[in-house]
């Protein structure tokens, strides 16, 4: 597969996955470009053991996880230096929060719904969010998800269940809020 064929086939998929993982367009584009660059550079070594889409997804998810880790470290030290650790309500102070971009869709009602769902997604643990996105949006099997994230199939199943229960709670709260 040539570079151009790879980009034509997977660039939009990678961008959409990045959009759901990051929750905003700016970060999504940055992440997608990073992932595509890595993929294109590694393409000559791609042996075709898995589907190219799965391979591209794996690179995207790994790139995103690395970014989240480094961002958490950065935020941690920033927070420590400001003496803000422990100033919150006991919850984890360090988390990636989606930027206040305009909602993703033009239809106002749909925009609001999309925004709320994305907000709920953003409150999941990183791995849980990746599992939900890969399962619900990208329709990957438990085995594929496990391969991409380096998790056992049973772990994927249980974490997906927990993530769904949490999403149900979060979306229920959002629906109840006027």
């Amino acid at each position, binding site marked *: 597969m040539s570079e151009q064929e790879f980009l034509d086939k997977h660039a939009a998929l990678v961008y959409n996955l990045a959009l759901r993982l990051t929750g905003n367009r700016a970060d999504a*584009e940055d992440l997608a470009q990073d992932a595509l*660059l890595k993929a294109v550079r590694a393409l000559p070594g791609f042996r075709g053991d898995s589907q190219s889409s799965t391979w591209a997804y794996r690179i995207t998810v790994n790139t995103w996880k690395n970014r989240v880790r480094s961002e958490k470290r950065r935020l941690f030290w920033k927070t420590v230096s400001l003496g803000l650790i422990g100033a919150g309500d006991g919850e984890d102070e360090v988390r990636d929060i989606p930027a206040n971009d305009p909602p*993703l869709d033009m239809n106002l009602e749909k925009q609001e719904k999309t925004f709320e769902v994305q907000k709920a997604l953003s409150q999941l643990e990183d791995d849980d969010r990746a599992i939900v*996105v890969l399962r619900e949006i990208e329709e990957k099997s438990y085995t594929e998800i496990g391969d991409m994230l380096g998790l056992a199939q049973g772990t994927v*199943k249980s974490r997906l*269940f927990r993530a*769904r229960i949490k999403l149900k709670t979060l979306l229920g709260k959002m629906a109840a809020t006027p």
Partner: protein
Amino acid sequence: MNNDPREQLSAYLDGALPDAQRAQMEALLQNSPDLRRELEALRAVSSTIKGLPHEGLPQGFMARFHARRARPPRSEWVFLPPMARPIAFALSCGVVALVVWDKTVTTPEPAPMHSLNEAAVATTKSAPVAQLDFANRISPATGASAAGSSALEVSGIAGPASEPARRGDIAPRLAEADTLATQTQPERKTLSRQARARGGPTDGLMTTERGLVVMSEEARSARNEQMFDFIETQKKKMGIARVVAKDEVISGLNSPAMAPKIGAVAPVLFKGVGAAQPAERELEDKPTATQETGRLSSDAGLVFSDGHSLASSWVLLGFPGQPPTVDFSLNRVVLIKPSAARILSVTPKPGSINVVFRTLSPEEAPDPAADRAAVIPREPRAVLLFDASPR
């Protein structure tokens, strides 16, 4: 395997259960309305997430991607140039070695005194025992008086072949040193003479039979007197009348009550070459006086070139009122002490001011033969003289 039916429900929703478990779950669902409601809730969540819109690539995405790809890859690491890498590696190894050495090698404690004494006792059963410490001082441990101990100092151990002293052969020397320590003064003088006769050091040091070099009491006394004289000379030069102990409290120092009573002192200005010369005092040459060119002896007065020193000494010497404001770029100030000396004459000369003074001593009668003269050069700055000496 987790047997929570709800977790199995999530997998059932995804069609991820094996056939047997799927059949079991369907049976459960038929009999449990709660489980069916839970399934519908999970299905609703799944549909909501699935309903998130699928977006196409933003406009210009691929152009930006290709532009980014054309840039050299961004490295988060700063690599040293190849030439510097060996140096950096060597430095790193050095630091690691230092840390390891610091953690593993401990500085040995100095050998305790008693261990050396024990060695000496073990080898010199018949001889008296002396102590030798690492500061090269010998003092008798037993059988010697305090006076004897203070009479001896070892200035070094020089064996016949300058070989380093070992514990085994140090014992006879210790015994000899102890013998010296217990001698009376005439006996030590005899030993000292004998040492000199053997060609030992002549500056008060004695070389004993065993090569031990010791300082005689006379030499030590002479050295102490020399040091005392030196300190006294320095004190005199610095105008120090008495050395105050560190913890001695002197109340009222620098206070007006402590200052000598001096009346108003009018300054006498001595300008440069060719300037008008005041003639308050009769010029008088003292050919026998010692002349100190370039500075006024501290016995008589002090020369100042800055306001801070002047201000502090002005009070200390007991001059009345506030110190004068002087432009030190143009002038120097000379303060003639009120009691240390009596000025006999101040003679303006073309290039200098000659001050002849007699040092005053409360114990001794003034000695005209000891009069001294100070020559204060007029250049490069004029001299402003404040004379508080007794008339």
